[in-house]
């Protein structure tokens, strides 16, 4: 019995050691492989159709876009679904992941902490309400209960309109939960990116939902690739982004996901 226990313990320790050594070896292979560096992108893949998981495979507009950019730049890369918080911290440090691609809007406040690529996507926020609602613009939301995904630009915009400490502005962990809150009657409206809202309305025709665009209060915003401060990647990838926008590759990807032509002129002049 005593011998068995000792043996089991040694086996356990051995497995643990091997695992740790294995992890270490993998990390080394990841960052220093021969034939050029592999750039590791982090993403929060819970934002269909921009980036989402189809079982264990990461998909979406952003993924196709970054594949095209990296091909143009002639570099190897991987995209890993790390979740939002891990993406933010690890990209800030720049060691485990050298960049983030996750529909991250470019804002002045965020530029204090990160560098961004040139804009690669134009978006706006959209209000979603149930049919028959008396809400027609963003300002109507002032004294209503509004659900958003926390830490998004929808959160920023509504914090500006309703006050950041207003508890009627309900911040959820994901857009999916904000949408459930609207359906269950706990909120009068959801504010989210136009692509998300349109996707949701399209997928749930029975729930009688309407999307409201308010160009006056919700201006255009632009997504950028997230880099650590002072990253050398920006100089390498910005020309590649520009090239694929100009040579039609970008338009092709855009049409595949959204079924319409993008306004690339706006994108190129937005930087």
């Amino acid at each position, binding site marked *: 019995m005593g011998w068995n226990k000792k043996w089991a313990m040694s086996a356990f320790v051995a497995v643990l050691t091997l695992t740790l050594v294995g992890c270490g070896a993998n990390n080394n292979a990841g960052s220093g492989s021969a034939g050029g560096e592999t750039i590791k992108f982090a993403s929060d893949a819970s934002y269909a159709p921009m980036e989402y998981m189809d079982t264990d495979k990461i998909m979406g507009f952003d993924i196709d876009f970054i594949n095209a950019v990296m091909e143009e730049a002639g570099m190897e890369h991987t995209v890993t679904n790390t979740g939002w918080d891990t993406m*933010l911290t690890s990209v800030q440090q720049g060691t485990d992941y050298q960049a983030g691609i996750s529909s991250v809007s470019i804002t002045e*406040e*965020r530029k204090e902490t*990160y560098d961004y690529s040139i804009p690669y996507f134009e978006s706006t926020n959209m209000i979603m309400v149930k049919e028959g609602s008396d809400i027609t613009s963003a300002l109507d939301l002032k004294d209503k209960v509004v659900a958003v995904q*926390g*830490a998004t630009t929808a959160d920023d915009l509504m914090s500006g309109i309703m006050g950041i*400490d207003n508890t009627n502005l*309900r911040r*959820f962990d994901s857009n999916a939960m904000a949408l459930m809150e609207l359906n269950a*009657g706990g909120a009068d409206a959801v504010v989210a990116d136009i692509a998300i809202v349109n996707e949701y309305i399209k997928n749930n025709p029975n729930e009688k939902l309407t999307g409201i665009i308010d160009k006056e209060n919700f201006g255009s915003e632009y997504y950028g690739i997230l880099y650590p401060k002072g990253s050398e990647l920006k100089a390498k990838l910005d020309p590649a982004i520009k090239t694929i926008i100009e040579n039609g590759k970008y338009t092709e990807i855009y049409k595949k996901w959204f079924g319409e032509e993008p306004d690339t002129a706006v994108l190129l002049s937005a930087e």
Partner: protein
Amino acid sequence: MDFRFDIIAHYLPVFLRGTLFTIGVSIVSILIGSVLGLGIGFGKMAPKAIFRWPFHTYINFFRGTPLYVQILIVHFGVIPAFYGTTNVLLTSFVALSLNSAAYSAEIFRAGIQSIDPGQREAALSLGMTKWQAMRFIILPQAIKRMVPAFGNEFIVLVKDSSLLALVAAPEIMFWSNTMKGQYLRIWEPYLTAALIYFILTYSLSKLLNYIERKV
């Protein structure tokens, strides 16, 4: 690493409001939870197996599933079913109370069963009814033994209430997430939240030590 105290200072007032919410929800839930728990604990000690069964199932369900899932089920399922719409305050009280009741029930049961059966027999042989024996002989001794366990349960509940941020209850983690959203910074909001929880639970455990020495 740069650490921005200015944004913490900016958020301090709302963090204080969040702290009050956390304390309020925890106190109400531990109170409702212990009342429910007392009933469920007695139910689990019922002499007939058929009566024990529902209480047994209740305890197993709430101890055997994560509070994370329970909060989601209560918020998006149970509350809309009974109340018509979701309501975050109701969710907070209901989810935490139901969860706490399961643990309280076990604390009550263990406390009562830890009293030597001889005590009960002696009380009965003195002519007390079963109820009197429980009320005057067993419970006073048992409750004394339950105090540390209840203290632990309360501390766990304060920390677990952070999961309510999941459904946007305006407690400490909710404001921490809000702060993260505004600045896209991790350390300041999370360390502030951690510090507040630590202060809460540390002072609570000091208070409980004091109470334990008194009873």
